[in-house]
């Protein structure tokens, strides 16, 4: 696998899109958290009533893992977008055919892309861990790994997004279509998720049936739903009307979707004409 990844690295290390999107991601993670940090410090902390909502800073350990994971996760579209571009470029320029003609098996081609998806997810997570450590250290609170599971949820979300990116690229094989479909799907799923959320609220209110947030059982939202805002105390006030957080079920859904994406991608790669 290392040998395959080294070849993949030869392909991408000089690619401008890779350099740009990776830099944007790292920059986005740091600046978004910095903006929240400064907002809390300069705006919220100066409002007396905010003390009722927050005890301590969201950038104190343990909260910093949750805060940084949550805000950084908005930028996970970037590595996923990079994967869509890299993957569909292979199809557009037919280099995937050449890789196979030169001796890779179809599965090796897919395997290295999946490995790349995992590497991107791990690298993104590493950026988040380092950002959290810096902000946590800056806050002056004692170091703690409590809440580190949020980093795990971030990694899970990154893997899910990247797997969706690979699957969409395999299904469409065209750069423009794949990028458009990726964004359309994201918007579509968020729309459906919102409708399902309202349905869940209605079921709870009218029938006293709490099935959890149904929107969180969808592919992207399953991994989104595990990362919640550090300011969720706001929503806590409405806890009696919103559905419960079935985190274990949502986690199971997210893992099942990853398995489905893997087998779907494999089937497509192994069976279709390239």
């Amino acid at each position, binding site marked *: 696998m290392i040998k395959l990844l080294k070849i993949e690295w030869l392909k991408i290390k000089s690619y401008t899109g890779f350099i740009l999107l990776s830099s944007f991601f790292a920059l986005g993670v740091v600046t978004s958290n910095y903006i929240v940090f400064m907002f809390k410090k300069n705006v919220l902390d100066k409002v007396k009533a905010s003390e009722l909502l927050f005890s301590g800073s969201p950038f104190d350990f343990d909260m910093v893992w949750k805060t940084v994971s949550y805000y950084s996760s908005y930028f996970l579209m970037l590595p996923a977008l990079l994967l869509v571009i890299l993957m569909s470029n292979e199809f557009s320029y037919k280099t995937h055919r050449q890789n196979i003609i030169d*001796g890779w098996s179809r599965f090796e081609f897919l395997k290295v892309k999946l490995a790349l998806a995992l590497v991107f997810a791990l690298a993104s997570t590493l950026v988040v861990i380092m950002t959290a450590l810096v902000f946590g250290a800056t806050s002056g609170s004692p170091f703690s790994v409590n809440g580190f599971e949020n980093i795990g949820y971030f990694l899970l979300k990154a893997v899910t997004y990247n797997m969706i990116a690979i699957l969409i690229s395999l299904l469409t094989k065209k750069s423009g279509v794949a990028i458009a479909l990726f964004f359309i799907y994201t918007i579509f799923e968020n729309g459906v998720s919102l409708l399902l959320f309202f349905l869940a609220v209605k079921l709870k209110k009218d029938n006293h049936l709490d099935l959890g947030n149904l929107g969180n059982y969808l592919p992207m939202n399953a991994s989104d739903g595990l990362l919640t805002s550090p300011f969720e105390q706001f929503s806590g006030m409405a806890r009696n009307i919103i559905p419960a957080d079935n985190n274990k079920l949502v986690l199971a859904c997210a893992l099942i979707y990853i398995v489905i994406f893997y087998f779907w991608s494999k089937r497509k790669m192994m069976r279709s004409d390239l």
Partner: protein
Amino acid sequence: MAILHIDNLTKNYKSVKALDRVSFTVPAKTVFGILGPNGSGKTTLLGIVMDVIKASAGTYTWAGNEGSANDFRKKIGTLLETPNFYHYLTAEKNLQIAAKIKGRGEADIEKVLKIVNLYERKDSKFNTFSLGMKQRLAIASALLGDPDILVFDEPTNGLDPAGIAEIRELIKELYKGGKTIIMASHILDEVEKVCTHVAIIQKGILKTVGSVADLMNTSAVNADVNCLIELSAADNATLKNILQQLEGIASITEVDSDLHIACNDKITGETLNRFCFDKGITLNKLHVKRKTLETRFLEITGKQSDK
């Protein structure tokens, strides 16, 4: 020894049959031409044996290895359809990737770039190359690792006349060096000049296969067919009807504004001209050619194209 054995390969694209039960064997140390008009199924056939297209039915075996043995493909140098490289990488970096996938060292990158006259442009990005240069880079990539088997699909595509001559000479040299070359082409002249064996495919159906020498000396219609005559008159339809009365003509094909007839050498330009004149037809073109692969090809395929 057979390098490639193809058995009843069939490929359907919905209702279109791109290949229909094609079977043949490529002997070792030959230049094996796969000849056919555009859209006849040549690239589909090569795509299947290189595992980028899935066959609907049938099997193939590379030098005794069942199915798509990936390790065996690493030992084959292939140019399939179009040169496929990373457009943002230089010629040298693209060849490094190909060499690493093939599991070969990078030592002969310089050598293959020199063979195809691209060494001076090794640091230029692929997207700055002309079509001919891209084609030459693809040939260089196929030569990496000095493979014993080479598969070329339309290798002279996009090349200028000098480039075409160079590639033909290269193929001949590779053959002399004991390599097996499988080459798909729709250019009859190209196949005739470099191939030792040929398979003719039309509309996905294998029409004939054998050595070029045997093919030229055998006619499915008439053993004596050895001439191609191009002719035309003001009324080609009447001319065609009249020619059908003449003995010794194997086939009559309409090509653009001419009629091409495959015939035996008893029919000379003089006898043909006199025959037409006696029937009240004045010819405005009469060109007698010796028997070529083109004669044989037209005799076998009969039609103008597979559109």
